[in-house]
């Protein structure tokens, strides 16, 4: 029973002899196994907070699993593509079931998944915990900018689109963020923290950041929020505790008038969507 050779031009493949290609395929695999002495980064970076480091390690763990399994499947596909290509009109053995094999590739993935889940829960529980802290920053997102309020200090930083409003926070200290939105859904995302969270209207989202190094980091709205979504930037400046205190004092003195204004908007959920004021 030959399939009718009506296939235009391309036609049946000519049988090719590639007998000892197998060795060529096995060699790079062995090399790969030997090279794995230091764990690669798989495109991610450890970041600048305690959480971002555990997220990074979780990322490495998931990536090792993905690379091992992915390589296995690709090798199997390439192997059969090369060695089980059509060579004659003969009909191969019609094997349909191999119960032990099928059970193996059901049970092993379940075990892998349970391991990934356990690692996930360990990291997640640490990351979403909100330990007690005295440093609190209210972050309010609006179309299209950010307002950072320091309750109790009378300090407000506000800026739109490319004005790069900057959130200042101390290093090595738990900083509680109270995240809200005045209008649509926004996304608070700092790449160096390996973290993002939605700012939702009518919802208070709380999380804790603990920076491990000082520096200036880029942040951005990640959830589509309308016309100027692409330009809704902010920055995070992580400073030492002393610098943080003096910054707070200088801001409070310089903007006493603004502080009085901000008292009303400190309420966590501003229910009525408001148009942002300029500047």
């Amino acid at each position, binding site marked *: *029973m030959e399939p009718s050779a*009506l296939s235009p031009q391309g036609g049946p493949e000519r049988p090719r002899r590639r007998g000892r290609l197998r060795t060529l395929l096995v060699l790079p695999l062995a090399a790969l196994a030997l090279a794995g002495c230091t764990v690669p980064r798989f495109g991610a970076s450890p970041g600048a907070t305690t959480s971002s480091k555990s*997220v990074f390690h*979780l990322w490495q763990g998931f990536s090792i699993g993905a690379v091992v399994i992915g390589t296995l499947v690709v090798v199997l596909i390439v192997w059969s593509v090369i060695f089980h290509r059509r060579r004659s009109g003969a009909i191969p053995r019609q094997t349909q079931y191999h119960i032990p094999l099928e059970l193996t590739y059901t049970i092993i993935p379940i075990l892998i998944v349970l391991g990934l889940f356990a690692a996930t829960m360990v990291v997640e529980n640490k990351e979403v915990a909100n330990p007690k802290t005295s440093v609190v920053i209210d972050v309010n997102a609006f179309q299209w900018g950010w307002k950072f309020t320091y309750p109790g200090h009378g300090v407000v930083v506000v800026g739109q689109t490319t004005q790069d409003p900057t959130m200042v926070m101390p290093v090595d200290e738990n900083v509680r963020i109270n995240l809200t939105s005045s209008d649509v859904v926004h996304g608070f995302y700092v790449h160096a923290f390996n973290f993002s969270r939605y700012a939702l209207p009518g919802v208070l*989202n709380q999380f804790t950041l603990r920076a491990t190094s000082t520096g200036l980091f880029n942040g951005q709205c990640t959830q589509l929020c309308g016309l100027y979504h692409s330009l809704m930037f902010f920055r995070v400046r992580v400073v030492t505790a002393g610098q943080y205190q003096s910054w707070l004092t200088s801001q409070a003195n310089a903007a006493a008038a603004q502080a009085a204004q901000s008292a009303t908007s400190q309420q966590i959920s501003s229910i009525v969507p408001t148009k942002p004021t300029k500047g």
Partner: protein
Amino acid sequence: MTDVLERPAHAEGHGHEEHGPTGILKWLTTTDHKVIGLSYTVTAVVMMVIGGAFAEIIRAQLSSPNGTLVSLAQYNELFTMHGSVMIYLFAGPFAFGALANIIVPIQIGAPDMAFPRLNALSYWLYLTGSITMLSGFFVAGGAANFGWVAYVPLSSSVATPGSGADLWIGGLLLTGFSAIFTGVNLCATIFYLRAPGMTMFRMPIFTWNLLVTAILILLAFPVLTAGLIMLYADRHFGTHIFSVAGGGVPVLWQNIFWFWGHPEVYILALPFFGMVTEIIAVFSKKPVFGYKGMIFATLTIGALSLGVWAHHMFTTGTVLLPFFSIMSLLIAVPTGIKMFNWVGTMWRGQIWFSTAMLMAIGFLVTFLVGGLTGIYLASPPLDFFTHDTYFVVAHFHSVVMALVLGAMGGLYYWGPKITGYMLNERIGKAQFWFLFVGTQVFTLPMYLLGLRGMPRRMAVYPKHPSWQYLNDWATVGAVLIGISTILFVVNVVYSWKRYPAGDNPWDGHTLEWFTTSPPPHHNFYRLPPIRSERPTWDYNHPEHKALEHGHREPAAEGSAK
């Protein structure tokens, strides 16, 4: 080799086509599932070309940081409509409206769908919905611009007052009803119209997958329909279901949307999994490895898919339950079973690298990448890290481009059955290489872009040396994919009625390869005995039955006859 089916003389008069209207009136009034399916196919491919054109404009805009090809407002419209057209108007209708409509009744030996007029209604609703949604480009304020997920409050009448948004909602409602009716039709057809001998565990995998798809449609689409009506009521009738000001809850929309949206992922994917399964088995000259395991895997995917919607919402902070994480992770298990079954089917086969088979292998590799990166996103900490960045964009484009490879494989595989003519294999293989290489060049840089912090849906982006070359590569990939689409159109035009196919050009397994190409009005003049899920193969190769590993081939007896 092939049994040339003789057209019984008395059958000539039975073709109802001869009595009815002809020409365009025949097309407008038809209830023949093959004609409706063909209309679906052509419409869906046109939608793919339209959505693809949007994608090319998007990638052209992103080829430089401060692209000026389109404005910020136009960019928002473009990616919204790119996603909407591809998901709602191409992938879904192509998956369960086009090839399913044509092939499922034939695979189970049925003369037509269970409700032929409902089937026609489905198509016309789909066409009307598509035109409605796309007409947004011609109204003041432009088309919908809130992303294909239409998150409230951005899609409220305050943030997006234009009528393009209303046309988007209306168009989606119409295509949603079309999907629901098709789901009803497929369920009824598969449950009630199977030929004698075609038990559930003798149904081809493609039909099985469409059954699970249809059930998922019935469970998920009504929820979307309800959500869209609520959204419309909020916009125009003064309700406050989603508005904070009136005491509503915006996040409810996300829950409703993704309760539909995640099953939708499998509504899109399962039909293509089915196509690929058939193609790999036929071109490896082997039965589907682990046929029953494959079916249970599909059922498991269907069941799990209803309990994972909140993994799209981890960063809302409102649904951070371990339940959604473990359910999402577990989907990797049945998907992995499928992957190993596909490899097992090729293993020790006699693989014939037709265009359809190349597309199927391309699907395997691309879907592998998309599937493995999906596992990361089931883990909330890793999702916080990558959510709304290009990593996610890359992940689902790996998945949907795998589906496009599967769709093309399906067209090359079943095209000859539907039209009676083959497509040119040489152009087909060129198309495959452009599509496959283009897909990788397009998606792989986007993974890195996401890990380097580039958010999605940005019309302009900061000048960043480590972003720029990756964006350039993604654009090159998009161009290669565009060339592959042009090659496909060229192939259809070039091969038009050029290579007659015969009834069984691929030595197929299932019933559609037993009838003529194209099949007659009610599909069959006669049927072979149905004693396994490969009745046509059994008929043509009675001495080569499927085996369990370790069992001996029985002596050739030809008992099937």
